[in-house]
């Protein structure tokens, strides 16, 4: 893993296009830190803009619930609420 991390930094220094770390700038609004910290631990934050804008409030509730219940994401209730509120407000219909 350390080897990979070093290779990654070297690639960045060289300015090559082979380092393809995706940089996703989410909308800066209350709750964004909870989204980045929790959702971003397992998957790219790209899934959020990718699935926008078409989900309604119930749709985002279902997605966050799926991540916790089906995928075992260790997100506590208050973070889950902050995340769904953020997603509904910034990426929902």
């Amino acid at each position, binding site marked *: 893993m350390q080897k990979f991390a070093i290779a990654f930094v070297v690639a960045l220094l060289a300015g090559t*296009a082979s380092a393809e770390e*995706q940089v996703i700038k989410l909308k800066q609004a209350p709750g964004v830190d909870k989204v980045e910290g929790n959702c971003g*631990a397992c998957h790219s934050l790209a899934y959020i*803009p990718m699935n926008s*804008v078409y989900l309604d409030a119930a749709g985002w509730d279902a997605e966050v619930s799926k991540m916790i219940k*089906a995928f075992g*994401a260790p997100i506590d209730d208050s973070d889950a609420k902050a995340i769904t509120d953020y997603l509904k407000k910034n990426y929902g219909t």
Partner: protein
Amino acid sequence: MDSLSRRNFLGTAAGAAGILIIPPSARAQSADPMLTPGVPGGVATYANMATLPGKKPLIQLSDRPPNYESPLEYFRTTITPNEEFFVRYHLADIPDVNVADYRLKIDGEGATNSVELTLDDLKKMPHVDIVAVNQCSGSRRGLSTPHVPGVQWGFGAMGCARWTGPKLKDILEKVGIKKECIEIGLNGADGPVFDKTPDFIKSIPLWRAIHESTIIAVEMNGQPLPHFNGFPARLIVPGWTGTYWMKHLIHIEALTKPQGGFWMKPAYRIPVGEFPVRDRFITQEDATSTPITEIVVNSLITSHRDGAKVQAGKVTISGLAWDGGYGIRTVQISTDGGSTWSAAKLGKDFGDYAFRPWSFDLHAKRGKNSVMVSATNMIGQTQTSKLLFNGAGYNNNVMQSITLNA
């Protein structure tokens, strides 16, 4: 990998990126012009063309797990080159498989014995070659109306390659299959970031596992499989969607009970009776849902994008047609919105599981020219004019319609 080391690594990488990275806008190419019309608008706000090791630029829908789509322009050949082939993973912990350490374990309650095979063992067995389309179940999900959550693929979560390797049937014979065996379980070396996330484990019915076309590919287009397409060995289930084509295959299990787990149910399911599929996965079926199985008949114009500018007069359009392995009988073109249809000329036949190329000469008039395409397979199945909606966005074979501007 445990969650702690993953988190530490991510922290390190993100920190390094913050200091060193050149802003992506300065050099990354937006994927916007390469997207399929109709995918959710959010995709264009972030997706870039990006180049994985050993690949040409692909539409980067997500990098973790890696989900990269082939743009339309990569479908102008019947065989999709390895470096242009799409990439799809569910979970983000993807090891580099070391050939010396690689073992494929075959065991299970439905087997008489168990064995472990090295990559050399697989390479020494009798091989077969098969040209087959690997299409993600969710290809075209992004075109669903209404949109449904998931990776928002356009046309390009598919490719067609020549796959080479031993038959799964020959491998199962090495352990002996008991009469109680009903399914063959499959697992790959990749896994989840957190141990509470269900590992990507699948199964296929025994009858499909011992089908002559089901092989373990150790070569793709005459080369070792690219890492991101399942090196060193993956299952090939020609005619069935990609969910069963397990990458980095390390475990084959003869099962006497239906495979459980998230990825068999509720994932990868279609409503019972909604689609005209022949292949059923009976041991997994319930009253309302059944596993997706075969690829529905489909076609695509690949010579021109929607809205392309052409010269008035003769224009040759071309593209691909494919299905679940029955073979393509006809491809038809309509230039009047579907009222009348004319047969396209079919090109070289690489076998029933392959893309079938086709071409058609039309007369473009000044202004807008509508062009629709529809394929019919050897058992008379055709594409639909209206979407058969389902919550996962599977089996979208709505006839494609584009406009050419002369």
